[in-house]
């Protein structure tokens, strides 16, 4: 009823401002329809008919209303005891890709987690890989980027701008049909073994390799794909031996801050973020201060940074005077310290070594964790059920779907189907 009250308020305001155009009467009607709708919902939520279930299943997965025929088809499948098929029927809608998945992935592509951001190579690759039922773990590892097909006559993919994807968005292109897969290395020039799916997309580089120390790539990878910011992962009992020189051990003259706060994250963060040591996002700070025309940059074999005298980007040696006795990064050999201590809870794959060289093996480490799989389910749960897990049954369903996700080759559509069914009402 609170929502209805808000609608009432909004409506009253609308009447005052729009009286001049003579639409107040139609809005009264709108309001009364609102009330009629909301009064019916509590009953419907408890005892949904198959059609109701079909409508909610479609609404939540696709984002748009279904036609009568589609609703009947879905209802029929539900009646036939084929709920997964019913959900996949809903996902035949282009809006599942163009609307739902685009909105689903867009906040991952920028630091502000802005859902209004335009389509880019990060979100397009997510959409394409889901459409093609590619193992979702590949989003963090593959030499793969989705682009608009050549026949569309779009601006070419360009490492220095987003024009290609902006055109796809501006044209309201049907992403269910228009996206095609390309080797990312053929587009951005990275060596194939230095590509890592969306992590090495232009959008991710622009957002997370931009200035700074590259730690934000680690942080936002965890936020977006492990469903955890760094704060809940704090563990200052681990060794600080890989914490870089730029982290003051006595910020403001108080080393307790380092020991009890900073170290909690940096003990694990810094050795993991070493995977990105050869990456940067380069742009002209004078002519393009926000980096709109920047591009991902990688020190391939043989490229030596003038400041570090290694392939390591200069940013990894910034502010070295803060603690000269700190760790000096000389390569991109990462190690996952969070395989010990409280962050074993993330469920690391015991068949992997927990350390490696470069971003691709880092992506593999993340993508093969239990937390990664569970995070995808939690995100879909939030997207489809419009809430987080609020009961033991919800928790159980998330775990069941996580198991199913892993057993079904990490196909994200499968999660949408199972969670959509769970939240379509009884």
């Amino acid at each position: 009823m609170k929502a209805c009250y808000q609608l009432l308020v909004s409506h009253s305001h609308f009447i005052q401002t729009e009286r001049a155009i003579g639409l107040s009467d139609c809005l009264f009607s709108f309001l009364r329809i609102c009330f009629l709708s909301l009064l019916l919902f509590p009953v419907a939520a408890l005892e949904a008919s198959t059609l109701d279930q079909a409508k909610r299943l479609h609404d939540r997965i696709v984002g748009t209303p279904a036609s009568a025929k589609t609703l009947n088809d879905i209802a029929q499948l539900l009646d036939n005891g084929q709920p997964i098929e019913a959900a996949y029927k809903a996902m035949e809608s282009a809006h599942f890709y163009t609307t739902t998945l685009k909105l689903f992935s867009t906040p991952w592509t920028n630091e502000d987690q802005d859902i209004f951001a335009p389509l880019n190579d990060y979100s397009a690759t997510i959409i394409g890989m889901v459409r093609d039922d590619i193992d979702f773990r590949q989003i963090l590892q593959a030499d793969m980027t989705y682009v608009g097909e050549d026949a569309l006559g779009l601006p070419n993919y360009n490492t220095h701008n987003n024009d290609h994807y902006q055109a796809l968005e501006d044209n309201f292109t049907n992403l269910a049909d228009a996206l095609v897969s390309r080797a990312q290395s053929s587009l951005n020039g990275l060596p194939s073994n230095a590509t890592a799916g969306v992590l090495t997309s232009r959008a991710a580089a622009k957002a997370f390799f931009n200035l700074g120390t590259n730690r934000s790539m680690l942080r936002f990878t965890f936020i977006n794909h492990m469903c955890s910011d760094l704060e809940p992962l704090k563990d200052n009992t681990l060794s600080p031996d890989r914490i870089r020189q730029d982290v003051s051990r006595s910020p403001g003259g108080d080393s307790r801050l380092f020991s009890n706060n900073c170290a909690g994250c940096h003990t694990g963060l810094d050795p993991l973020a070493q995977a990105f040591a050869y990456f940067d996002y380069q742009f002209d700070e004078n002519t393009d201060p926000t980096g709109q025309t920047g591009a991902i940059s990688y020190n391939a074999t043989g490229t030596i940074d003038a400041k570090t005298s290694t392939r390591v980007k200069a940013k990894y040696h910034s502010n070295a005077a803060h603690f000269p006795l700190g760790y000096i990064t000389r390569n991109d050999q990462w190690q996952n310290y969070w395989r010990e201590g409280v962050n074993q809870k993330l469920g690391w794959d015991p068949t992997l070594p927990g350390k490696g060289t470069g971003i691709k093996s880092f992506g593999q480490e993340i993508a093969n964790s239990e937390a990664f799989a569970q995070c995808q389910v939690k995100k879909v749960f939030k997207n489809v059920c419009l809430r987080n897990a609020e009961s033991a049954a919800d928790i159980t369903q998330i775990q069941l779907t996580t198991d199913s996700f892993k057993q079904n080759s990490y196909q994200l559509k499968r999660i949408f189907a199972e969670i959509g069914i769970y939240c379509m009402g009884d």
Partner: protein
Amino acid sequence: MILSSLLSPSTVKMSSLLMLVCSGLVLTSCGDSVVETQPPAPIDSSDIAYTGPAPITEDIQQYKTSLWDNISRADKCGACHTQGKQAPYFANRDNVNEAYAATIDLVDLNKPQDSRLVEKVSAGHNCWLASNQACEENMQQWIKIWAADRVSIANTIELQAPVIREIGSSKNFPSDNTLFSRHVYPVVTQYCSSCHSESAIIAQSPFFASPNTNKAYQAAQGVINLDDPAKSRLVVRLGNEFHNCWSDCQNNSDTMQAAIQLLSNQIAADVIPPDLVVSKSLRLTDGIVASGGGRFESDIIALYQFKTGEGNIAYDTSGISPEANLTLTGDIEWLGSWGLSFINGKAQASTANSKKLHNLITATGEFSVEAWLTPHNVIQEGPARIISYSAGDNERNFTLGQSQYNYDFMLRSENSTSNGEPALSTPDNAEVLQASLQHVVMTYKASEGRKIYVNGKLINITDEAISPLASWDDSFALMLGREASNNHVWQGDIRLLAIYNRALTPAQLAQNYDVGVGERFYLLFSISELVDLSNTYILFEVSQYDNYSYLFSHASIVNLDNKTLVQDVILRRMRIGLNGKESPLGQAYVNMEHTIASGQPISSPVTLSPLGTIIGIEKGANLDEFFLTFEQLGQHSNVVIPGAFVPEAELPATTDSAKIGIRNFAEINASMSVLTGVKQSSTKVFDTFKLVKQQLPSLENIETFISAQQMGITQLAIAYCDAAIEDSTIRSAWFPDINFSQDPSTALNTTGRAKLLNPLLNKLMPLNIASQPNKTTVYTELDALITKLSVCGSRCDSSRTSTITKSTCAAVLASSIMLIQ
């Protein structure tokens, strides 16, 4: 044992400042004015005017001006050690040449710090100041000035076998959580579980208030100090840091401490577990002092090392009279690591003694101010006065200030204001100033203007107002921490301040940066028994880093008997222990693994790690006892096997959200397009969508819905309905039986309305779905709406039919029929 690799190269070049300034009056041309300057302020000799024979050698002259003129005064050694009083007569006032002969055995010109004169005053023998430390520093500095180039280039240090201590006992956490559950857990679950529990809405690690008691107990061990409950983080966070107190912080802190005390009282002190492979232990003061050597200090005219550690005076130990000692007022704390921490206080010299700065700097026309400092934050501005030679908010000779991330160098010169403006500031974008320990030097000389160096590097800024010093006022005072007016407070730590009347060269200031600041010790942890080789040690350089931690660095292995290991020794996973237990934090050497080969030379320290780490102070620098543990050292091993990890059960959120939601902006746009058949790219709707996009809901949570969003939805619905009805293809397909060229009374009569409303509702709310409004009721409502809109007098032409249709369409399209999912 000679240690040559651990100290920075140094060249103490003590040129004779007094020789320079005693060479006569110096005239400096400053434009139209001539500033007459003086040599160093003369010793007040009202009671000791020397009338004896002149110094017979140049060294005796140097001795006289550097040392004798200072110590022979009646208020210092001259009160006793003069002819006929207390031997030795090194303060003889009758004959400086005889005094020189008596003094020469009491000083070590190579190592002034080892001089007998220094040792005596250091021990408190008739120290003329309130601080023995300050007397020691002054005596040492006078001898250094006399010795000049004879001072040893002290880049070596002699290591000596330390005292052998066995490891003391301490309290440890029992494996069972019963005591914790009884005493501490009830407190933390009552007051801390809103955050420090994994089931909290915003979960905040560590989870010592977890619903899982075992998990809470594990987490709590990192924030409880059994040996000293008052130093538990749980207590300190409340009492000292005011962290989320639930009522009065001190009372809350006391409550927490009492609970921990009860826990501690029932735990017996343990000795170090016998399985551990451990070195012998040491206290900091068992170490060999490593500090002091190597700084470039020629032309120094004021020096503050802040070693006193207590009282309200910070001594100028430059050896250049008069000592411009600083009087401390306000909120200032001494740092155990040598230094002052300014909260809201001021350290100020008298104007009379500050005058030496004026005299000596205007004599040369150049100067440097060197400081090791730690700004407490990067938000203070004003500029906040770090070091200032000034008289008020708008009158200064020079100032080092802070404006957020910038250092500011204000200087009174020929072209500046009396406030030293324009200031030379480090660039905004560079964010040079950080809230960490920094070595800051500002230099000035007339030909080059002002320069600022941070951590040994010149900051790339151009002094746009190069001009000679002018109009310096000798009535100003040197002050730290805030302005003479007590305004412009600076918050931060100053650990060393040196003022020179020369502009330091980049090499000179880089040398001082490399030397570092504060007192450092070499600690030799004996591992002789573990490797079966006498006098074998793990060597650490240890210093007090700030008031809360020690800094351990330069780990190496060394043998003092010039012997080598008889067999290979594997050294794995070394940890630092403190007061009978391994430190829970800061174990930077735990992943270390080395093999020291038999026969490998270890008579000079062999580096084990380039890393440094900080270990929290517990009982204080004089009481804390350190040791090392190893998982393997030679034939001894104690492999630590981590406890089995018990994954925590995930807990559901405690919220109860609505089971329905609203569509967001893109879903609304797409839904309206699907329902009306109008393409999203249609110009009219595209423009409207661009206009209202940010106004539409971005979240699907129905609780977030606000009226402004409904405004946007309605505008977009009108655009879509308008486009649909104006599009003859869509319109005729959707409403094939309505004649839009007729006026409403005809087109929308009873029959016509059914031809409008049935197709409308069949498309916008297909089928009969229980969660949608009752179609008959909606029909009735819309029918009434059309009736109202059809009363239109003279305006009832055929266009009114389209308008009514659009309005009716929008009434449904903008409603919850579309919005709610």
